[in-house]
């Protein structure tokens, strides 16, 4: 990792792609594709990008305030994919409609690493230029 380059810290939460395609961007094939460095962090508070499928499940409802609190602290929300849920999506809409949360959305389940990189670049621009 170059010392001069800025580093984008990504926290990935609640999406099956977290264990699949997110990991691909750590490999040698993609890791030097962007003009900045990125790391997948374990610390949500420390992250600048939070990748999420956007589904507030029944049990996640109790943690919604905490989640929203994290998202409004100058972070970018990267929404990934479509999810099928049996349950209502009312609480989810509240986060989407919040003007304080900068959101980038990716569609589709089978997201390619190239698309993730492109989305990360947009997230980076949001953070550095806004």
């Amino acid at each position, binding site marked *: 990792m170059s010392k001069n380059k800025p580093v984008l810290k990504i926290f990935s939460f*609640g999406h*099956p792609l977290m264990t699949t*395609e997110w*990991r691909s961007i750590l490999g040698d094939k993609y890791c030097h594709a962007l003009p900045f460095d990125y790391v997948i962090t374990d*610390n949500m508070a420390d992250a600048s990008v939070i990748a999420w499928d956007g589904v507030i499940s029944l049990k996640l*409802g*109790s943690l919604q305030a905490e989640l929203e609190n994290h998202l409004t602290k100058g972070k970018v929300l990267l929404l990934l994919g479509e999810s099928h849920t049996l349950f*209502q999506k009312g609480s989810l809409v509240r986060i989407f409609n919040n003007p304080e949360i900068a959101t980038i959305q990716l569609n589709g389940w*089978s997201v390619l690493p190239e698309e993730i990189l492109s989305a990360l670049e947009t997230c980076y621009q949001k953070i550095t230029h806004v």
Partner: protein
Amino acid sequence: MFSWKEFQKTKTILSQDSAYKELMGQHHVTVRPVNLIRWVEMAKDDLGYLTLVEIAGADLAGVEKSEYGFELTYHLLNMGNHQRLNIHVIFDLQEIVPSIVHLFSNADWMEREQGEALGINFSRPLQALLLPKKQTNYPLRKIAHTEHWPVDEVEALPQIKTNPNKSEAPYAEEAFVWKKYDVFSPSTFGMFDWMVCYDPTNVVDTKMNIGFHHQGLEKILEQKDWQHVLQLVDKIHVGAAPTYGIAWAKNLEDLLRIKLPERAQAIRIVVLELARIAEHFTVMHELTFALGLDEHRLFINCREKIYELMEKYCGRRQGLGIAQIGGVKQDLPHGWIIEYQSVCEIVLKTLRTIHRSLVSQSKFREQLNGGAVSAQTVLEWGISGPAMRASGLNFDLRKSQPFYFYQDIDFDIPVGINGTAYDRYLIRHEEVFQSFRIITQVIDNLPLGEILSADFDKDFFGLQNYLGSMPIPQAWQYTGIESPNGEAGFLVMFNQSVNPYRVKIKTPSLPLVQALTHFVSGIREEQLRPYLASLGIRQFELDR
């Protein structure tokens, strides 16, 4: 290995009761709740059915001529001679079903799951598992309201009053420390809420709260037709996508007695093994990533090669949507085999180098040692896959009940000794070599011919009409295959239609999470993440 001789012996014993039925090489008995314990005890103690694979409940409101309102199916496995027994309990809602948790420890979560989803009364008080407490919507009933739900409060840390091990306390009681890792914590991989008790350095007990990503997948699948189910089930485990698609297709094919063309079987074996290799690389990457070792990048590089192969075959990196009823969607493209041979050579060479580097590091060996899990514990909790084999049990569905033509392929099943995370790593590492060995043999002897049964070479509506015209019984059908992390399959109730009436998903991750306390007992806090990574628990496999 499955044997018809043994099957007939068990059949003779079981069929002395008039409620016996045989379907697709599995035993089915139907009993009333009052006889359940007697049957389960007999199955376990006298007939050797030591593993409870799954419990599936169904609301029979849509079943014609049904005498009772509900049914619970207990799916048991005899690992010795690979026979499967389904005990169907039929009852009305006001009746109480006896709990079998004293016979099978893993029945606890299964009963809780069926209790909350269908509102079944078991003979013990049940806590909610996936849904909020005090909900009365019972989403798996045929007429269920899913609009309004209560919200759970965040649980406080337990007060320690006694030694959680219920043994002689090695420390004063105040030396125990509970720590909470919520769903946002790195130690839980975003999957569950976890309270862990330390003594104060090593784990002695844990409390688990799951269901944070519960999306009601089983109910969603019930509302879809067989073709849509095929699309959706691939997403249960995106990293090894063909696994669940093939398991679902195989379930229908077994029910309808469809014979697959040999080439289609060969291609399915190839993609299943590629998915296994890719998943093992993911787990080994997560393991090394959690330990902060640089080798994690190399595992991803190897996996990338496998995904490229998959993409060249079907156009999708993880192999989504390969399976089709009656065969596979695409044939291997021209030049793919040469490509495979070169990838195989590069990946195996890289893997040997990474392995040498890892095992020579004392940090790697030390961090993954401790927390041994015995074979008895593994059996008791219904664990399967590498986590089971690491504890010394030699059981793999590819060998014990070979599907397609696995029985004609020469390969070994690696088995561990201690049941530690280090053993699990070694098992996965060796399984990668064995999977390449399987693919190479299949490719060297790749049968010629069609990739789809002639009856199924139709468009969607043609297929729908064809399947609609086939006689389908009202029956439960279980098909499991060996996924990278253990036994994966579907216990499906068909009600005279090819579309499922009730789908119960069997995944290897849920038993692992249920038994997690045993897997982490005795380890230190910094070992939690690598230990969890070594198990290969997948978030969507916890969904029901």
